């Protein structure tokens, strides 16, 4: 297992120096002297860059997403909860895509998908809530506290731009990752809901009230508080029509699925197209918690994911913002290596993380976790700490100093072209 060759497929194809990068990444963590910090382009170049952060909530089963068909252990661990080999979309001589990931596979073929395998953190936690807290805050074990990692990115690097629209969440469950104690975000369950429903004559008074307060000169006690809330109200009134216009009036030839993820991604595409100003767009795609009879629900969710994200990436293609959009897909944990007696899988540990987009250097990163050498809870052992990926995004995408955001120095991966 451990000696398995893990080529970075795209780099292998393009050959040359890139191959070195791919192999270095694939061969696991190693200190790097001339590291990413030096490669960071000037900050102004990063201002237009956008991260679309998608969470697969509930814990996606990585083993049935990217299926290690060539590993005998897989079939032993998954006698019934498996994906038949003949249905897989070929990837390499070790694994293949779940057949419902046709569009995802196209991205792979185009060299626009980086798959980081075996991502996790030490001493895995099996509670969705708590594991997400760890992912969201990027804190070490112990109690996660403070702001989310995106929130800290804002507090430390984007503090000169206090506008709420820098970070946008589309959907009901706002993840703690975007929480900042200093800055607001734009978050809406449906774009329609991001408006005050008063008629025109009421709107006029409503807006005048906010403007009157914003200019309040007194700055103590009640009036200071009124002025600050007034500023928030004025911001909401400014943002509301922009949210409605950029999403509901977005014109595109691409047909998005009409499920929650499809709608949310369409909103994000519209906002990016309208240059709404988001640097991070967050989406939570839930229900991956497949403890029983996993096949049907996971297939449905993967299909939804594949169609939704496929539409988004196709929509983005050829647009001027395309080179500036990086998509990162995470899940709070993977699932137990072996299936359970209910034809499902229980909460596990390590799982893959995906990066999509034009700026991505496609291929595999990180070593595939051994299906034989499991931890004491029969879980896959992680090879890549998720904070390495955060560090990668922070340093190589946003040109930020990850030490100011993360609890320590984590090695970055060369996933970006």
């Amino acid at each position: 297992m451990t000696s398995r060759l893990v080529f970075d497929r795209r780099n292998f194809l393009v050959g040359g120096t890139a191959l070195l990068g791919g192999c270095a990444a694939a061969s696991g963590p190693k200190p790097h002297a001339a590291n990413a910090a030096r490669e960071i382009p000037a900050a102004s170049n990063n201002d237009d860059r956008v991260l679309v952060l998608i969470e697969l909530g509930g814990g996606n089963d990585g083993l049935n997403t990217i299926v290690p068909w060539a590993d005998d252990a897989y079939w032993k661990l998954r006698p019934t909860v498996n994906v038949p080999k003949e249905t897989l979309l070929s990837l390499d001589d070790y694994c293949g895509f779940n057949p419902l990931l046709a569009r995802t596979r196209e991205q792979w073929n185009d060299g626009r998908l980086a798959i980081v395998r075996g991502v996790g953190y030490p001493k895995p936690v099996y509670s969705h809530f708590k594991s997400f807290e760890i992912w969201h805050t990027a804190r070490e074990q112990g109690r996660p506290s403070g702001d989310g990692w995106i929130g800290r990115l804002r507090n430390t690097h984007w503090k000169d731009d206090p506008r709420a629209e820098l970070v946008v969440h589309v959907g009901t469950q706002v993840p703690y990752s975007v929480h900042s104690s200093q800055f607001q975000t734009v978050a809406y369950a449906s774009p329609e809901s991001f408006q005050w429903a008063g008629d025109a004559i009421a709107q006029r008074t409503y807006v005048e009230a906010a403007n009157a307060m914003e200019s309040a000169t007194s700055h103590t006690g009640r009036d200071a508080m009124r002025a600050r809330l007034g500023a928030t109200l004025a911001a909401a009134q400014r943002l509301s029509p922009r949210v409605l216009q950029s999403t509901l009036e977005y014109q595109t030839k691409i047909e998005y699925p009409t499920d929650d993820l499809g709608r949310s991604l369409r909103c994000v595409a519209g906002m990016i197209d309208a240059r709404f100003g988001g640097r991070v767009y967050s989406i939570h795609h839930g229900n991956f918690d497949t403890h029983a009879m996993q096949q049907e629900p996971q297939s449905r969710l993967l299909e939804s994911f594949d169609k939704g994200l496929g539409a988004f990436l196709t929509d983005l293609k050829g647009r001027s913002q395309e080179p500036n959009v990086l998509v990162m897909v995470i899940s709070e944990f993977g699932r137990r290596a072996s299936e359970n007696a209910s034809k499902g899988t229980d909460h596990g540990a390590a799982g893959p993380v995906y990066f999509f987009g034009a700026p991505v250097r496609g291929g595999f990163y990180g070593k595939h976790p051994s299906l034989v050498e499991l931890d004491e809870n029969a879980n896959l052992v992680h090879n890549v700490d998720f904070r390495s990926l955060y560090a990668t995004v922070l340093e190589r995408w946003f040109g930020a100093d990850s030490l100011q955001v993360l609890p320590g120095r984590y090695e970055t991966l060369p996933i970006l072209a």
Partner: protein
Amino acid sequence: MGPLLLKVLLLPLVGASVSGNGRDLEWNARNVEHLFNRAAFGATPSEVQAALASTPEAVVERLMTVSRPLEPTQLELIRWEDFNLDPRGVPVDDSKSKYKGVPREQVREKVTLLRQTDRAQFLEYADRYFDSMLRGDAPVLDHAALFWHGFFTTSFTVVVRKFEIIRQHEFVRANSLGSFRDLLQGIVRDPGMLQYLDNNTNVKGHANENLARELMELYSLGEGHYTEVDVREAARALTGAWADPEGRFQFQTENHDDGEKQILGHTGKFAGKELVDILLEQDACPRWVALKLLTYYEGVPPTEARLADYAAFLRANDYRIDAFLKRLFLDPDFYREEVLDARVQGPIEFLIGMCHKLSLTPPRNFVFAATARLGQCFYDPPTVKGWDGGETWITNASLLGRGNVAGVLVGALDDTAASNDAMTAQDDDVGASTRDIAVAQLKRSTHTRDWKSTLDVAGELARVGARTDDQAIDYLLSAWLSIEPPAELHALLAEHLVRVREEAHLGSRPLADGGADVDHVLRRLAYIVFSLPEAQLN
């Protein structure tokens, strides 16, 4: 000028006064309202009047009295195995399932039904608690229980069964004005808390420090007043404290580490009770509790002198919360300028207070659903720290949201197509405007589709004799806002009414005369006012 009440309201009012800390508590309308705002859930003009005729001591005493206890709850204990879960909340294998051999579809239906029962029990309990707030059965107690819910958080996303959650709230509420000693001792034996903070996996030889850490950091001392060694040793003391499958506390001798522990300078074979006694003895403990209480009730963190004073008082009074709050409510410094009107209400406070002021009875499950939308889901805090509260309650979305929820409550959003056709329409229905869709979504999610607001502002204006628009605005701002109405808001609404009169061809007819057209104007006025920052403050 109209009848008595309006006259009285517009006069400077002074009643009795109480002295303390070298200053007197001026018993005027503003201070009376301040007391009701912070101790209870706001006051109506007539409550302010009645209180002014009484003394501060008598009013505080009455607010602290429980006039009607919460009805006892008959809970169905749904067993973990009935959910097809083990006590850790993990689905059980078919071979061990109590439904072994039963067709899968049937199992799913059965479990779904039980989940609904579980949730319904919780929502019913929440409504009973909210009803008590709305009726004012035990104002100080119910408000303090809300404070403690944020202090000792537990989440139903972790504790899967609601039985323990309901029981925890009953316990916390019952002790909200008792001794913090009982609260802290009780919470380390509380089955919901034990599950929430993983103490069921805290066993001899395999300590889980989660509960021990929060106990020190969040529930008693605050960061910086203990070491990592204290946490580790405290975790050992808590081993064996277990939430059993029946939803009860159980001390498992076989899982308890009965060896010697060293905690905060004490050495002994401590278990949970002794650990809590040690924590209560620390100087940091009364300071921590006083800090949290003062910050919550005053809306600003206390000065060092004030904190030290109140911490000493708490310790000298065996951690009695009732004594603490009584002292605070009668303390002239509680009525200082910095504190008055400058605190952001939490969503539950905001909605309960609004219903109280407007004499509205919201439909079942409304308060739970609406406040969840506004960022304060009862028993689902964002983190183990609870809600940050204060100014953080207000975001661009939550401010828009608070306004719209208020709009539904006052019946200002019933005039759109949304109230009829769009109600059943899909979100992407071509015919409906985005506004109609938003209102339909809001009504659907807050259980107000078939609910009609009983708001009668014109009747109230007639009762208090407000004939001119100026008088009406004066009265309504005073009645609707918890804070002293800013003058510029009065001017703004006066201009608004001029425009509205023109639009609706009202001429100079007094709003107090009522009628369908006036009713619409007044509902819209209420919607605007409760949407503004001023209405979020108290």
